């Protein structure tokens, strides 16, 4: 079973600060997705990265896939209270079809 480790596990910051969340594995993934989950709801897809070294931007969020496709990062610029939530990375490996392996998540709290 491939494992995804996320860090930090918890992050509490003030509005306007920047932050980076990391997702690491010793295994290679065909693609990697990032989801955000709010209390009482299921996770919602933010982005999919497929190519090693790929960078995608979604407003103030920047996602990067490592060159070796073993790790990824999510950077948020000028965080806002609306960014609060559980951020989950999820990897697709070549042997498991569309079944995703999820990381443990990073719980982000942005204080006004």
């Amino acid at each position, binding site marked *: 079973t491939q494992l995804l480790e*996320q860090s930090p596990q918890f992050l509490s910051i003030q509005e306007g600060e920047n932050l980076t969340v990391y997702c690491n594995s010793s295994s290679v993934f065909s693609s990697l997705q990032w*989801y955000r989950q709010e209390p009482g709801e299921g996770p919602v897809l933010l982005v999919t990265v497929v190519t090693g070294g790929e960078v995608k931007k979604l407003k103030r969020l920047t996602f990067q896939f490592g060159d070796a496709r073993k790790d990824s990062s999510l950077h948020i610029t000028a965080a806002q209270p609306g960014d609060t939530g559980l951020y*989950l990375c999820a990897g*697709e490996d070549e042997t498991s*079809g569309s*079944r995703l392996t*999820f990381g443990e998540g990073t*719980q982000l709290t942005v204080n006004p």
Partner: protein
Amino acid sequence: GAGVSQSPSNKVTEKGKDVELRCDPISGHTALYWYRQSLGQGLEFLIYFQGNSAPDKSGLPSDRFSAERTGGSVSTLTIQRTQQEDSAVYLCASSRNLFRDYGYTFGSGTRLTVV
């Protein structure tokens, strides 16, 4: 429907009882997944259905857990002789074939509490 529907949203059951959790996926989605999530934690894979293929049951934690998907649509996850460690949020998701572009669409989950 417009989204993935799960029922019930909350279930409290006594230890040793059986429970059934239902998932109604998005129409036309060929794949259906069950995961469970303990408080504030990541998602643990349970089982995955893809079209008419045999399901991937590799994540089921014991033989007390089973799931079926009827007619390629609605799925039921059954937990027999529930234990306290089964308490968690059970999430169902569905996806299209091009899941990389659209990802999983999750339901809001069933919160199961075994007392």
